[in-house]
């Protein structure tokens, strides 16, 4: 075990080089629906129990199935209204179980990125070879079912190894060169993209994927009221939009349609999206597009700034 994962150097928020998004936008907004499949009877993992009860864990399983049966379509219709394309964090087994949902995402030109095979299969305990095979399976499945070269990763159920990001980047390169495997949503250290150090030296970035804005964290962990969640989204936006006048920020709203798309919660979310999209200088985009734009335009200048400031810090 290490004291620090070693993915990035300390890089203070003040005094950074200015980032500007396309058309002078101050804030890049992306919405990341998690389209997930949880198994009713998954194998045990020695480090994490998939369900709190012995088989069958109906309360947990059935509410997650609600997202697939009811929630996704409800959210798709809402996002259509605001011209928002989802960046899907995908349990790729969903392509096999529920291809209809994948089709609906494809029709909308949504992005699909890897969230592992099932959200009930964890990275814990996998050998490097096993984890590599699992990641490869997930990227190949996305390509087979959507034609997309998977750009991003969010580890299944946020379960990681020390090598997760290295392996994702390397498998992406093996399959599709620089067109795949170049961003991660697994790190929550910043409101702007950050270059990530990997053993391969690949140009790879962390794109902000806010746990604080995540509906499951809001509703299941923090147990807040729907309208308070809506207000938090608006407040989060207001501050990032204001700061974006100095240097472009990223706002992500990760969702789970077994939470946010329940009938008693969707209105608060709708109000928040309406508020955000009524502002002129918002780049409504996807995770992949943010990562590509950043790598193309800011990766080098930001990396140089980080290096320079790391040296200052070392003196």
């Amino acid at each position, binding site marked *: 075990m290490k004291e620090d994962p070693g993915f990035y150097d300390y890089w203070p928020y003040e005094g950074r080089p200015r980032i500007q998004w396309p058309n002078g936008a101050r804030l890049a907004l992306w919405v990341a629906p998690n389209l997930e499949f949880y198994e009713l009877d998954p194998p045990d993992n020695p480090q994490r129990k998939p369900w709190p*009860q*012995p088989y*069958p864990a109906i309360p947990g399983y059935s*509410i997650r199935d609600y997202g697939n049966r009811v929630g*996704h379509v*409800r959210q798709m219709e809402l996002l259509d209204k605001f011209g928002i394309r989802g960046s899907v964090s995908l349990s790729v087994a969903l392509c096999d179980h529920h291809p209809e949902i994948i089709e609906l995402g494809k029709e909308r030109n949504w992005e699909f990125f890897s969230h592992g095979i099932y959200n009930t299969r964890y990275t814990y305990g996998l050998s490097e070879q096993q984890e590599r095979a699992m990641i490869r399976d997930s990227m190949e499945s996305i390509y087979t079912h959507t034609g997309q070269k998977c750009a991003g990763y969010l580890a299944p159920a946020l379960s990681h190894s020390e090598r997760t990001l290295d392996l994702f980047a390397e498998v992406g390169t093996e399959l599709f060169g620089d067109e795949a495997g170049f961003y991660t949503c697994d790190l929550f250290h910043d409101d702007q993209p950050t270059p990530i150090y990997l053993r391969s030296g690949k140009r790879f970035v962390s794109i902000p994927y806010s746990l604080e804005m995540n509906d499951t964290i809001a509703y299941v962990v923090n147990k807040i009221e729907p309208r308070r969640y809506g207000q938090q989204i608006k407040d989060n936006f207001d501050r990032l939009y204001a700061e974006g006048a100095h240097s472009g920020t990223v706002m992500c709203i990760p969702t789970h349609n077994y939470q946010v798309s*329940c009938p*008693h919660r*969707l209105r608060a979310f709708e109000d928040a999206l309406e508020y955000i999209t009524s502002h002129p200088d918002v780049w409504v985009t996807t995770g992949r597009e943010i990562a590509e734009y950043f790598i193309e335009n800011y990766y080098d200048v930001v990396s140089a700034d980080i290096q320079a400031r790391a040296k200052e810090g070392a003196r």
Partner: protein
Amino acid sequence: MSLDDAYLEYPHRHYGMDHHRYDWSMLSTRQPVKWPEGKTLALWVNVSVQSFPLDQRGVPFKVPGGMTMPYPDLRHYSLRDYGNRVGIFRVLDAIDRFGIRPTFAVNTRLAERVPYLIGKLAARGDEILCHGYHMDALHYGGQDETEEAQLVERALTGLRAITGQPIRGWLSPAKNESANTPELLADNGVVYFCDWVNDDMPYRFRTSRGELTAMPLSTELDDQFVIQSNGHSEGSWVDQVCDACDLLLQEAEQHGGRILGLNIHPWLMGQPHRIGHLERAFEYISAQKGVWSAPAGEILDAWRGQQ
């Protein structure tokens, strides 16, 4: 040491569900349903009338809402009993004031112990469904099948005898089940059950001993879940109920009839400081033109007639 390679094998990775209980189906692709009298939103007010024993065993877990203190936990025992002595009568007044046709989910043990109350409920002519034997008589994975079979049989036979009703519906305590529960319910003449929270509409559910219908009774909007587990204010619960009502009414215009299932606990909403909030929710919903208040079994029959 790494995991066995079997951890990366996925025997159920194929089209549809990873089990055989029901078919995969998206709500948006189903044939629209129409409710009687041209209504679009069926309101199912499910009043859970519960019995929490003082000598709780807590096997395999302590039921939410049950005893938490060392024996004898008089505070929780009596606070739950409050619902059956006082709270229920406030809830009934509210129901009648707004013309709501409720469904009572009754623990059979309560019917045995408090014939007065069950007599009152049965005499109203409202539907009664079986909420298991009592709140500590849980159904759970790994439970002995014979023991569970006796539990289900005792709960249903007892409630049928006491109420004189056919008792077609079932709600497991804590919505918890074993792998055998659906079969045992089918064996005992249950037609519909309300434990699976994966849909906003009914759907067909397979058992090896005949078919059940799963009815949608939301946990996420349940008063106990919102107010007690999440710690939201009563006012927020009312907002959530009204927002759900609005959304479902709106969705029903395009996609066909919907159901608003509200599970209410008299020991919670029947408190003097909460009953007004329940009334506000009822007032709002019952004022909506598209709303059809009906017992669960009647909603089920209307749905079935169109499948």
